[in-house]
């Protein structure tokens, strides 16, 4: 009897293992979640390196990972200062865009007329290409000013934050609104105690989407004039002078910067929402 039950367990385990790969312990699974993408990345890099050194792909066309690393180490101070500059522009743009986005969404949620007035402007801002705006703003604010880039980052972040926040402000339920009215809450209390907390997850999602957009916009804006020194302008000049390995090194730094922004806003979202259940209560 013991042997049959043992057999049943073994076959049962084998059966589930064959059907779904979730037979691992949670610990193995969390290790795998980190290890799997890293090993995939290393494999891709290895193939890339082999392609260039053994496969005979011209190093001029496709620089090998090792040569990119060499450039990265050699130009490390420049990479760091360029990342800091682009990062500052992105951060300022993101902060201003968030602030303006949240405030205008609050106004649009409060007064219907403001919503109707702002809707076409927001739609226009949503479709304006950075490529079109960058040269104009750069020449407007002079060749030595970072303001144009910060403004572009702000405009790019404004749109998703405005749209998400406005949606969040409209999520209050009738029973909560009745309750606040029954408590004779004034509009400030209404905003602080009900509307803002209800909109919080929406605002945070908007900021997370905007964070990547801010970095991309600040970086791309550097391609179109203005002072040198940012990641975008260094990628452009390196590529123009055929220093492709160096250009790739700056591209790597750009990716790192974008990821940093994304992860920082994700962490902010987790931190704020940690003890806040997302489901509505009855």
């Amino acid at each position, binding site marked *: 009897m013991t042997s049959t039950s043992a057999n049943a367990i073994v076959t049962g385990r084998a059966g589930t293992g064959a059907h779904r790969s979730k037979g691992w312990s949670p610990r193995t699974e969390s290790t795998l979640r980190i290890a799997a993408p890293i090993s995939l990345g290393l494999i891709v890099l290895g193939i890339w390196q082999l392609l260039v050194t053994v496969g005979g792909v011209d190093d001029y066309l496709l620089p090998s990972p090792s040569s990119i690393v060499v450039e990265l180490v050699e130009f490390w101070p420049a990479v760091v200062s360029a990342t800091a500059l682009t990062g500052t522009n992105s951060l300022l743009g993101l902060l201003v865009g968030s602030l303006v986005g949240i405030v205008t969404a609050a106004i649009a949620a409060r007064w219907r007329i403001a919503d109707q007035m702002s809707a076409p402007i927001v739609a226009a801002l949503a479709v304006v290409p950075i490529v079109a705006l960058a040269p104009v703003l750069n020449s407007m604010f002079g060749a030595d000013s970072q303001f144009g880039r910060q403004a572009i980052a702000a405009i790019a972040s404004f749109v998703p934050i405005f749209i998400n926040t406005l949606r969040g402000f409209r999520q209050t339920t009738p*029973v909560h609104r*009745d309750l606040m009215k*029954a*408590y004779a809450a004034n509009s400030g209390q209404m905003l602080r*105690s009900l509307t803002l907390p209800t909109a919080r997850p929406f605002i945070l999602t908007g900021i997370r989407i905007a964070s990547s957009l801010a970095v991309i916009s600040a970086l791309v804006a550097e391609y179109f004039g203005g002072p040198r020194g940012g990641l975008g302008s260094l990628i452009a000049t390196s590529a123009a002078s055929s220093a492709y390995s160096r250009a790739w090194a700056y591209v790597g730094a750009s990716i790192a910067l974008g990821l940093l922004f994304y992860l920082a806003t994700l962490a902010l979202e987790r931190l704020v929402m940690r*003890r806040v259940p997302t489901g509505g209560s*009855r």
Partner: protein
Amino acid sequence: MSDQTLNSAATADAQPAASDTDAAAVLVRGVNKQFQTATGVVHALEGIDLTVSAGEFVSLIGPSGCGKSTLMRLIADLDEPTSGELTVFGKTTTQARLDQDYGIAFQQAGLLPWRTVAANVALPLELHGVASAARRTRVADLLDMVGLTEFADRFPDQLSGGMQQRVAIARSLAEEPQLLLMDEPFGALDEMTREKMQTDLVRIAANTGAAVVFVTHSIPEAVFLSDRVVVMSPRPGRISDVIEMRLSAVAGRENRSDELREASSFFEMVTEVREALHGGAADSSGDEPPVARGGDTR
């Protein structure tokens, strides 16, 4: 005091003497409410007259669409009547709302999901500028009253429906209102929780001496809780009957317990309300209780 109001209310159907008009918790005179909808005008309420004395427990009962919730919302100043007059403790409903003369509970608990149980109960106190130390003691007392002390730091989604509703009731009592407005607060609860909550509510209302306007569609619930049951009929919403509860088995509300649910006077009252509801305009002011029809007390 409450005995006196009970006696005076017992003499007339709904028309008190001019002298208790001042003391009335709620006074409704000739109220009409019409809603404009896409298909035309809906007469939600027509010619409503109602007086709720201080400390009196009045239930509004009727089928869906009879305007019982609408009437409660008018008293709470959440909606405005098309015509007619409403006063709460002699003031306009708006003034009464601004003065926070009533506490309110809805069918949905309506707790704020990002606040703990304690913070939810503290919300009205917070909005009205009660100092934090006083707030803390008051919240502790209220949670003790509804038996949720150990859940003070939980969030609403960690509580069962019945517990959430108890939090909502504690919140409605936070400022010791002399009038409680409750719109089917136990509607979503299972029968056992519901009976427990009813017993608790009767005790709390008796202890605080608050008048209660209680909207329900459960006959036994209305009979168990009330001094008077107001029966309403739909399209247009009218008061078709007001039935005095004569539960001889017990002296006062504070003594109502589960035993009452099995008393013969309870069943007589259930039958009377039931016949008023189903019989439409049947005259139920006769002194002898009608014979029970069948065993269905729902």
